[in-house]
């Protein structure tokens, strides 16, 4: 079917501004990071030291534990967003009348910065005066030190992240649901399918593409996340909420530039090892479902 088209009206140099900016300010530092992560570095001199930075990174609990925290955070936020946003999107594409208002309200947290959300929630989670604990006490429970207790701190930040980031997932789902052909549902109801069956057998398979985007986007966002954690706990208590990005910052602030860059490379590898195969798998699944 494909006819040979004349491409001469599309000048190749049009890609240059984007490509040059992207290559200089994004790609090149990544390439050089592979070398600098193998050095003792202070910007002026870089002394080659082999894999010492990586050895140190994985032998110190304060740093190695950040890999686990990063994974818990990324998979936790991603899973919750995928599930919760699906039901909100179903709700918002039904025939209820207040959906315009609710849609705006759900989108609202997106406008507020991570810093502001982080600070606000850290006060809502205050161990004695915070609203959450006031409500818990009213219901007869014992107050929880959400951010001060190492066992609950990471989960508390994770939930805040879900609250803030839900709307993008909802919007992507809504886009997917709205593009489904209505006649499928009409045919299904004539055949006597219940609402739940329609949801399971029509909506769910046909939003697979949207769902995959959400999984990938939120997972990568989670693996990189820094601001919310920095605003709410700064990595503490102890190292209980330190993630890769906060370790990178802490080592930078402490003057260990080589070590910080090694942390950056660890993050790069972690994301590549998780995201690329996952995307491949999700694309395969999407093809199989349709």
């Amino acid at each position: 079917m494909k006819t040979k088209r004349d491409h001469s009206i599309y000048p190749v140099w049009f890609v240059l501004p984007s490509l040059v900016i992207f290559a200089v300010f994004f790609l090149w530092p990544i390439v050089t990071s592979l070398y600098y992560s193998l050095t003792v570095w202070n910007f002026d001199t870089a002394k080659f030291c082999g894999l010492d930075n990586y050895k140190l990174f994985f032998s110190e609990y304060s740093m190695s534990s950040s890999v686990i925290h990063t994974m818990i955070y990324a998979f936790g936020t991603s899973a919750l967003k995928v599930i919760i946003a699906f039901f909100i999107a179903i709700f918002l594409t039904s025939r209820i009348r207040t959906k315009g208002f609710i849609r705006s309200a759900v989108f609202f947290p997106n406008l507020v910065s991570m810093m502001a959300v982080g600070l606000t929630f850290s006060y809502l989670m205050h161990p004695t005066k915070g609203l959450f604990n006031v409500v818990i006490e009213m219901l007869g429970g014992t107050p929880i030190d959400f951010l001060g207790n190492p066992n609950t701190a990471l989960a508390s930040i994770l939930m805040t992240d879900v609250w803030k980031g839900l709307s993008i997932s909802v919007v992507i789902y809504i886009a997917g649901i709205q593009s489904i052909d209505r006649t499928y549902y009409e045919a299904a109801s004539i055949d006597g399918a219940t609402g739940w069956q329609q949801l399971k057998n029509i909506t769910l398979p046909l939003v697979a593409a949207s769902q995959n985007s959400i999984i990938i986007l939120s997972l990568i966002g989670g693996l990189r996340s820094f601001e919310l954690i920095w605003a709410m706990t700064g990595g503490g208590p102890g190292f209980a909420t330190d993630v890769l990005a906060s370790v990178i910052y802490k080592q930078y602030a402490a003057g260990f530039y080589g070590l910080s860059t090694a942390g950056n490379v660890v993050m790069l590898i972690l994301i590549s090892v998780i995201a690329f195969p996952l995307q491949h798998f999700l694309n395969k699944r999407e093809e199989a479902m349709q």
Partner: protein
Amino acid sequence: MKKKKKLLLLGDIVGLIVTCIVFLIPFYFMFVQSLKSKPEANRLSLGWPGELHFENYIEVFQHANYQLVRAFKNSGILTLFTVLGLLVTAAMAAYVIQRRHDRLMTGIQAVIMLGLMIPASILPTIHLLQSLHIYKTMFSMVMIEIALQTPFAIMLYRGYMASIPRELEEAARIDGCSKWQIFSKVIFPLLKPIQATLIILVGVTTFNDFTNPLYFLPGSENTTVQLTLYNYQGQLGNSYNLLFADIIIITIPMLILFIIFNKKIVDGMVAGSVKG
């Protein structure tokens, strides 16, 4: 049929209540906190302020030698030039990538799309900026914001570009347009719907960015709005009322942007994701 109507009404009511509790209370909290006196704000309660202290907002502006004013100027410039630069460069790139679709362009696209996944390397970037003598300059900050958001912008543009018929360009060429005119006079104006989406998404991301200015634009002269929040948290100690006044002030520009482009966000995303 009647049962269904009742069910919908129930859905409306439950939906409204849950939305208000989950999504609006935190904002209500921010707002009332910003209008309280200092001791009242320190109680962190949801109650309406005994007296409205609008002067909190003025005090926040005056704090630290009008730091917030400088921050607004810096963030405004950063956001404006990032959005403008990205709208033009990404549109040019996406246009040629989508239309040519040959081996070279597929390769370039694959490289740029890597940026959606892999994280930036921070310290090598600082080192690069230092050796180019542009560290701590607005120019380098704009370039970095553009570089980081180029993959996303090209992806959105490319998806939308597919819906514009090629015949337009061929007709324009027959009418005697130059290659640049075909793009700037014919194609670029047609991209408006997706540009609205980009303006709000890129604008909000850049204005609300904390991490990148923290690394690449340090110094009190260079401070951006999100960094004021970070600084005030240390300086203002327990003046929660002023901290929340700052939060409200720096959220208002995004709220205005949202009100202007509200409808177009979803439309643009729908167009981009479906056709992409």
